[in-house]
């Protein structure tokens, strides 16, 4: 079989050894990607096979073909877009409010060390509290529906955001701060020109974690009180024993979360450029 020639940039003088190294790197990448696809295909194929041969009961575990059919009918009827839109809106609102709000609180706590020390035990308690316990109170305070779901989503993400960003601000190199002070920098300048840019890697990490947590918050909120959205579809599907609907909604959630994560990863790439 003819060996495929490796494409190399024209400018660099590559040796044979370097060419071999580049080929190995490319082959490694292909190997990993191949097995990633194989696992997915094998999982879906095996699931379908077991469901078709009735080794597992599709009534309880559905099957890829039933999920596909359900998705097609939901797209045909057009109802799915409304549910996706509502869940996406709630998640994005919660994600944005929690990320910006948590960072703002972290900035205030970094600015005032005394305030941080006063509030520290409350933040620790809030962080360890299972936020779902606050569900009924949230509904009582802000009413049921979208606002309660966004509040739930914000509550789940904001404490973690505050703690992570505060740690990032506080771990800024002390000598660099001294350097800025020796140049007569004001506190606000130290923050904008040093502390905040130094914490950008942690901010990207917060965004990545919040992508996951925001979806958890939204779906938890929709479980508690909603009349539309993917979480509502999951609850509704389980109540009427339509496991296909539950699985289809879950698959859509997976895709949406992956897309959101991908966007944050692109942001990270741009930041590291």
């Amino acid at each position, binding site marked *: 079989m003819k060996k495929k020639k490796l494409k190399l940039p024209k400018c660099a003088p590559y040796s044979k050894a370097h060419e071999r190294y580049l080929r190995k790197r490319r082959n490694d990448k292909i190997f990993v990607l191949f097995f990633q696809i194989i696992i997915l295909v094998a999982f879906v194929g095996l699931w379908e096979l077991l469901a078709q041969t009735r080794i597992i009961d599709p009534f309880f575990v559905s099957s890829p073909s039933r999920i596909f059919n359900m998705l097609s009918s939901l797209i045909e009827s057009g109802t799915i877009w409304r549910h996706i839109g509502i869940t996406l809106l709630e998640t994005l609102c919660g994600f944005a409010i929690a990320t910006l709000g948590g960072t703002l609180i972290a900035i205030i706590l970094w600015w005032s060390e005394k305030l941080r020390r006063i509030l520290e035990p409350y933040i620790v308690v809030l962080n360890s509290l299972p936020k779902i316990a606050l569900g009924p109170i949230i509904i009582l305070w802000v009413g049921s529906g979208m606002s309660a779901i966004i509040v739930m989503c914000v509550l789940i993400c904001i404490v973690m955001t505050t703690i992570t960003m505060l740690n990032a601000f506080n771990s800024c*190199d002390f*000598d*660099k701060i*001294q*350097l*800025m*002070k*020796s*140049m*007569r*920098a*004001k506190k606000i*300048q130290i923050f904008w*020109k*040093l502390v905040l*840019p130094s914490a*950008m890697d942690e901010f990207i990490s917060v965004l990545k974690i919040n992508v996951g947590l925001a979806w958890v918050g939204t779906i938890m909120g929709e479980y508690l009180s909603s009349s539309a959205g993917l979480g509502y579809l999951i609850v509704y599907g389980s109540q009427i024993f339509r496991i296909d609907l539950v699985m289809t909604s879950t698959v859509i959630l997976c895709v949406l979360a992956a897309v959101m994560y991908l966007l944050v990863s692109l942001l990270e790439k741009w930041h590291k450029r």
Partner: protein
Amino acid sequence: MDTLLRFDNVNFFYQTKKEEVHALQDLNFTVDELEFASIVGPSGCGKTTILSLIAGLLPVSSGSIILGGEKVGKNNHQQIGYMFQRDHLFEWRTIWKNITLGLELQKYENKEEKLAFAKELLQKYDLYGFQNRKPRELSGGMRQRVALIRTLVLEPKLLLLDEPFSALDFQTRLNVCDDVYEIIKSEKKTAILVTHDISEALSMSDKLIILSSRPATVKHIEMLKLNGETPLLRREDPRFGSLFDFVWKKLTNEKEKT
């Protein structure tokens, strides 16, 4: 030469949970204009604290530090440039943005002149082609030169060097030592170097201040007149070895006391 810096009976105490620590005791010394002074002493004796006091980052407990005829405080920050153990370049900024950082922090009437001076320094010290690069693309020696230029752009009268070569490997260290020394001399600056390295102190300085262990006092001041244009050449002076032994013994005595 006129005296640029004078320490008059300077004491410094700091508080810990357990006790009050007397770090510096009745320090008296002077540094003349254009002089290169080095401070050596046992670990933890308070060498860096001295630089922080001069830079006004810490207040003296008693006594006074006079810089250019004025008591050290917030007003004479502009006369001081500080270089730390590591270059502390901001990785997210280009070399040019790093060099002009100090100019962004204050309103300077002659900002244009200072920017032109920054450009001139970049050209003079072979960094002009790198102004749009990020610090990670530069070698250790180049990074240290950038850090020095960042300090020089503000045209300070006195440079404080807090072990600026300690993070470099030995060979780079010798070369960067020469570079930094040449820049400081050609820009006509007064400098105070704090270091653990006796050879480095001897090869670079006109004056060597030896401190005792804590509470630090001035144990000995040695005026150095070694032959050689550069620190590397000064190491070849026949007196270098005996001076090294002399300082080594003084420091070893202090170590034994502690």
